[in-house]
């Protein structure tokens, strides 16, 4: 229960930061994608199911505010969470390379999917322009922010896990 509450707070906090504070700190109008960081990290830290749910709900939040239809970003973010969950087996908290690589790939593929579904299908074929001006800068900025944001998420998750282990020992449940 506490985990759900804290994760919900984290999503909410990231969304607020992304839409207000980072819009003020944007370089050339580009904003880092904090939600991708949260979704991907919980995906590979907690597994597929967590990735799916967190992706779904943060996508829904984006949809309500900025989507043309409801469910579009939810679907994209959910799939990203799911794929990141696949890497749960080779994830170790001490390792920073895998998270960085996964978040990079997640953000790049998010940009690609957005381009293909929202722009390519409307006949905007200048892929290089969009890659150079939107997708790539966003990814670079996101990685920079990841270096600060990811340790925080990791810390929160470890505290939660410690807490859960304690309470499950108390009740004699070993998962």
């Amino acid at each position, binding site marked *: 229960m506490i985990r759900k509450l804290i994760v919900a707070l984290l999503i*909410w906090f990231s*969304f*607020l930061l*992304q*839409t*207000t*504070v980072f*819009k*003020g700190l944007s370089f*050339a*109008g*580009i*904003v880092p*994608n904090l*939600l991708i960081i949260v979704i991907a990290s919980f995906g590979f830290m907690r*597994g*597929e*199911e967590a990735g*799916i749910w967190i992706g*779904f709900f943060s996508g829904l*939040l*984006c949809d*309500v*505010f*900025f989507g*043309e*239809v*409801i*469910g*579009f970003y*939810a*679907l994209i973010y*959910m*799939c990203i969470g*799911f794929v990141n*969950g696949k890497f749960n087996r080779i994830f170790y908290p001490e390792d920073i390379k895998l998270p960085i690589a996964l978040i990079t790939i997640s953000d790049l593929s998010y940009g690609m999917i*957005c381009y293909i579904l*929202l*722009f390519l299908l409307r006949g*905007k074929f*200048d892929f290089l*322009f*969009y890659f150079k*001006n*939107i997708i790539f800068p*966003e990814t670079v900025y996101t990685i920079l922010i990841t270096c600060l944001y990811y340790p925080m998420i990791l810390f929160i998750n470890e505290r939660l896990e410690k807490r859960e282990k304690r309470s499950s020992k108390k009740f004699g449940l070993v998962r």
Partner: protein
Amino acid sequence: MSPVVRRKGERFTLPSKYLLFILTCVCVVLMIVSLGTDLFNKPLNATVSYVVVPFQQGISKAGTWLANRSEELVQIRELLQENEALKEQIAELTVENTQLLQEKTELNRYRELYKLDMQYDSYTKVGAKIISRDAGNWYSTFIIDKGTDDGLLLDMNVIAGGGLVGRITSIGPNWAKVTSIIDDNSNVSAKTLATSDLMIVSGDLASMSEGVIRFSQLIDSQDAVAEADKVVTSHISDKYLPDILIGYIYSVEKDSNNLTKSGYLVPAVDFEHLEDVLVILERKETT
């Protein structure tokens, strides 16, 4: 054996690929439903207006305050210099002003004579603050801090600094989403003020960084449209009120079909530094 296993004493769990499949179906249904109707808009918009919008308002207020303070410190020196220059200018301007006042009374007389009705001034407007911008980098939409509680409605036009900004495309009790005319999805029917030639002004992500927006389908058989001509919203647009300034023509070129022309125009509004906007409390349908 079915993959949805339930052992004794264990909580019911669903394999994640099934969960993904189910939620994908949910998303697709949501998309289809929200594409055709606005069934979910009311409850969802009302929810976020309590959970998210008040905080966005708070943060943006604090942010503007901080930005203003830091700017003040930087600007003090500049201001002192500027002050000197401005004093000189005041002297010049007072002379000019008296001249202009005379001309103004003249103009007013002419206006009355010709019964020129300045419609643009007669719209009732309400000011609003931008509290957050699009979460991604693909579209140019933003959220303002007024909603249905302040008398705003869907499709109301939004202006700033005398030019068209966009229109309200989604609304909640205390917030509204404004899709700007530079948004890649937006198309506005427009005309040139001088010659009343119709055209379509469409936002374009690719040309946004250069500070211009595209227009197309301009039929101008007399070659009368030139650079720096004023472009305003047309009377045939079904969402935008007529005669609101959009911008100035930057370049015109003939299309390959030799019938229509297209090119770029410079918007009258500085979209990059937009903070306050005015919402016109009048909709095209009702007028």
